[in-house]
């Protein structure tokens, strides 16, 4: 899992059937110092995250496990919202 900041939303009208009703968010992954790290990615939301929030996301096959795992095509899913930046102890 990686820390990330939600930096935007994304709308796709035409998409895989099993993605219908899912919220797509643009996330910027952060390093341990909460600085941007790498290119932004698109993630499916499973916890009700919104723009500006600090979240963490799961990669790979496991990313589809919060949904109907056999047929949800995703490799990046937001699985938690960090309570605040003060809650990241370093």
């Amino acid at each position, binding site marked *: 899992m990686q*820390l990330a900041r939600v930096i935007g939303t994304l709308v796709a009208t035409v998409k895989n059937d099993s993605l219908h009703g899912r919220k797509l968010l643009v996330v910027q992954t952060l390093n*341990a110092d909460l600085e941007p790290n790498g290119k932004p990615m698109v993630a499916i939301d499973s916890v009700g995250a919104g723009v500006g929030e600090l979240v963490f996301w799961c990669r*790979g096959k*496991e990313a589809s496990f*919060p949904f109907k795992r056999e047929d949800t095509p995703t490799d990046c899913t937001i699985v938690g919202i*960090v309570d605040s930046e003060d809650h*990241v102890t*370093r």
Partner: protein
Amino acid sequence: MILARVVGNIVATQKNHRYQNARVMLCRQITPEGDDTSYSTLALDSVDAGVGDTVLIVQEGWSASTAATGEAGAAIDSAIVGVVDRIDLL
């Protein structure tokens, strides 16, 4: 598996239900010599690791889910599976 140092942890109230009662640790990958790398990751703790510990992190879903929650099939891609006592290099 990767070598990492635990640098902190995060608190998230809103998260995937399989993360309930788990500790989410912020870790920075290190070289076998002990130098920091630029890669950091979140991992679920399964061995009571603490901040400052050098740990072994598995980054594969089935193993990570099983180690951290006792059951496979969770949206978990990384887990701490050992605390490193020492490394001997040639």
